[in-house]
């Protein structure tokens, strides 16, 4: 799901840094308006690290296994801290594990961060549907988790196929975008179910984690 170095043209990479910078600036501005921002930093940082570690858990899907992206869940739990958290998580993945890349960090952060912020808004719907309802929590958790990954997949493959410096005709590009996005639908469903289960677990064990 992370676009590596070398694939995208420099202009797209720089554009990605500009959009990621704008999104991060907006998120930081919102964070700075929330009282003492330093108070939230250790919590957001440890949860950033915890999300990165949780994404290493492999979910068995015969005949293989997948690891989850958890951008939707991250948005749901961290709110506006999700944008810097994703930027840092992707930076670690690029530098420590060579997943993604330094030149594509902006593009990847924009895709994952903006979808995480959208997932946060989706998760807020639970307050409208009924703050104490477990069903509303599970449904909103599912939509945040599945929506986060589905939107990110569609965005990544659209960027990839429309900017990759390869000699692909329009039909091949379109077919590639549709095929790879559709291939991620089962993964989005799994991520949605996993997110719903996880938010139910958090609601039961430590409901403060889900509070803004």
């Amino acid at each position: 799901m992370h676009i590596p170095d070398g694939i995208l043209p420099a202009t797209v990479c720089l554009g990605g840094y500009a959009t990621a910078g704008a999104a991060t600036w907006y998120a930081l501005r919102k964070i700075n308006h929330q009282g003492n921002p330093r108070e939230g930093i250790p919590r957001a940082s440890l949860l950033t690290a915890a999300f990165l570690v949780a994404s290493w858990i492999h979910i068995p899907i015969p005949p293989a296994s997948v690891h989850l992206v958890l951008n939707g869940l991250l948005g749901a739990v961290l709110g506006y801290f999700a944008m810097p958290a994703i930027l840092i998580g992707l930076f670690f993945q690029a530098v420590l594990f060579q997943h993604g890349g330094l030149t594509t960090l902006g593009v990847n952060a924009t895709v994952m961060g903006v979808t995480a912020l959208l997932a946060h808004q989706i998760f807020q719907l639970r307050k409208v549907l009924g703050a104490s309802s477990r069903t509303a929590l599970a449904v909103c958790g599912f939509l945040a988790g599945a929506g986060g990954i589905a939107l990110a997949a569609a965005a990544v493959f659209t960027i990839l196929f429309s900017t990759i410096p390869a000699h692909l005709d329009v039909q091949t590009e379109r077919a590639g975008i549709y095929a790879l996005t559709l291939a991620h639908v089962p993964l989005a469903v799994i991520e949605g179910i996993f997110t719903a289960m996880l938010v139910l677990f958090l609601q039961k064990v430590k409901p403060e984690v889900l509070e803004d």
Partner: protein
Amino acid sequence: MNLQLDRYADLNTPVHRWDPRCKIIALMALIFSFSFIQDLRLIPVMFATSAVLYAMAGLPLSFLLTRMRVPGFFLFMMGFILPFFSGETVLWHLGPLAIRQEGCLDFVLIASKFMCILTVSFVIFGTTPFITTVKAMRSLGLPYILADMTLFAYRYLFEIGENLKTMQTSMRLRGFRSGPRKMATLAALAGTILVRSYEQSDRVYKAMVLRGYGQPGSFMENFQPNYSRGYAGLVTAITVAAIFVAAQILLHSQTGV
């Protein structure tokens, strides 16, 4: 768990002694100039530049090869897809599939840029302690929230990773066998990691405040006692990056590639 990204950061080479702020600016400019390249004739120069830089950094080749293993899978996938789908000039027929010239050249371009960018990024992060790199980024204008979060997350990433490993071992010892129907248990495992981190963050914050966290000057960093400025290196790297960009524009205007 120890990924030892900066295990060679204590070597004594000109690249190691280079001021981390200048190093970040210079080598990031070089990396972006690499991503600008579209003409295959510039690839040998790009490889030579990366190789000279890596040799100057004194990092062992095994370090590069070990870290290239994971992204090697990506290269394999690109090499598997592009020659069959990109372009029209057929070189060989492989059963019902045709290997196309343009696809092969696209693969060479993408793989070369990928390897060179990765090599230079190892020079940035492999020759300076990671914490010093983040402090250098902070002094270059990185907002304090991002810098603090990066340092905190880096400090606890490996500890939380060890916690996960311990919990997975405990689950296996108690007879847990992973399967599609065990997703609720795996969700609880991930949830436990989050809850533990959440609880730990409160203790960490209180301990940090007691040690002066948030007071002005906590990020004051003087790089000069340990590093030479290296403005010559900065100018050289930016000039090389500018030459790559200019050469690409010139070649593009001549050949339309």
